[in-house]
């Protein structure tokens, strides 16, 4: 019984640290990536919240899908997501990840992101402003602190469902399997 409590305390402390140090992967997948430089630079400065850029998937915690996702990009995004280390989160950025946005009838862009990747926080808006991006990070921090940011967990549990959806739109699937 007491190891459950001690585990809870360790989780609280670890979640506190994960909340205050979020490393965003430097991967601008869509047109929303233009609002990341203003968020990271001097006026809005996301670094004071502990949000910093990370160069490779191994070092990153958050994968920011900034805008629409074409079929060619989602194949690389899945590969990048699976390379990231475990407590990882996905932020869907812009209305194109929520319901396809203005390219809902395009033959090359997916419409709903959480069919293919577990999304923790959605930021709506067609090109959300830097303030919206910061509120998205604050929302993610709240979920991390409360321990409800379990997208990676959900991905692991029903991997077959995600794989089925992904393989439906990606024709030749030449990817290593996901060994978390």
């Amino acid at each position, binding site marked *: 019984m007491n190891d459950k409590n001690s585990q809870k305390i360790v989780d609280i402390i670890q979640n506190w640290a994960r909340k*205050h*140090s979020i490393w965003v992967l430097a991967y601008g997948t869509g047109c929303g990536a233009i609002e990341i430089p203003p968020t990271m*630079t*001097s006026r809005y400065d996301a670094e*004071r919240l502990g949000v910093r850029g990370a*160069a*490779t998937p*191994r070092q990153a915690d958050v994968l920011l899908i900034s805008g629409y996702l074409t079929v060619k990009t989602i194949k690389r995004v899945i590969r990048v997501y699976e390379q990231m*280390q475990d407590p990882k989160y996905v932020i869907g950025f812009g209305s194109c990840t929520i319901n396809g946005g203005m390219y809902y009838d395009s033959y090359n862009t997916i419409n709903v992101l959480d069919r293919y990747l577990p999304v923790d926080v959605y930021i709506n808006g067609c090109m959300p402003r830097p303030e919206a991006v910061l509120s998205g990070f604050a929302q993610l921090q709240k979920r991390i602190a409360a321990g409800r940011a379990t997208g990676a967990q959900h991905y692991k549990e029903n991997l077959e469902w995600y794989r089925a959806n992904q393989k439906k739109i990606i024709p030749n699937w030449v990817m290593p399997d996901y060994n978390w």
Partner: protein
Amino acid sequence: MNILGAVVTFLLAFVVGMTYGGLNRKITARIQNRKGPPFYQNFIDAFKLASKKSAIHHGAMHHLGPAFLMVSSVVTLMIVPVLTHSQWFPNLNFQGDLIFLLYIMTFGPLGMALGAGQTGNPNSAIGVTRGLSQMVGFEIPWVMALVAIMIQYHTTSITGLMAAQAQSGTWLMFSSPFAFIAAILAMLGMFGYSPFDVVIAPAELASGPASENGGKYLFTMMSSGSVFAFVKLTLYVDLFLGGADNIIMLLIKTFALYMIPVLYSNTSVRYRTEQSIRWFWGWPTFFGLLAILQAVIF
């Protein structure tokens, strides 16, 4: 008694090194007129990295790479006397430790290079070649400076040099200025901040050798990096600024020296590998030669 002293030294080095890293980020932010993270941000980052659930590695050597870095910085810490004559920080320094120091300081990056080589990621492979070639660059002025002060004061141990400074009353910085200048210019290369950060250049190589390290390994690299920074600073204080006899003096002197690479890195573009080597074999080597001449003649 020695064991306890060593542990306290390591904790002091870790805490001070991490706070210096946090202050570096704060000062850089202020130069870029933004607020910047709190000074203890590096501790939070380190703790988050340590508490990552998965630790992906590509084989034993890659797993041990960061450990080599930590070994190198801790052993260097044990040799460099932190405070002049206080029984709390006894250090195992001995007669020929300056020469041993030269060897052990390059042991860490070599171990890291082996680890990075095994990952198979081309970014880390090219990063390793760049790191080693740049190390050749800044080693030459650094060795010249050490050789000059060794000849001038006929001793090869740090405590001997500190005793010489205490006995002659003037800091080595003034009595052998060329060696000091060569050593400071070599320090810019050792820290690997902006003009010489071609090794971990994010824009070209996606953070070079560390591109496959995440979680625990990055934690080990980060903490060994800050311990190594503290050790280098105290080494410079002992060699050229007459050592410190209490903690406050130590912190003031080391922070003053730390400002040189930090401020220079904020306003300088990154050198390519051959440009940085060519720069190191330019002015710093010239001052190293002058230092040796001064040591031999006078």
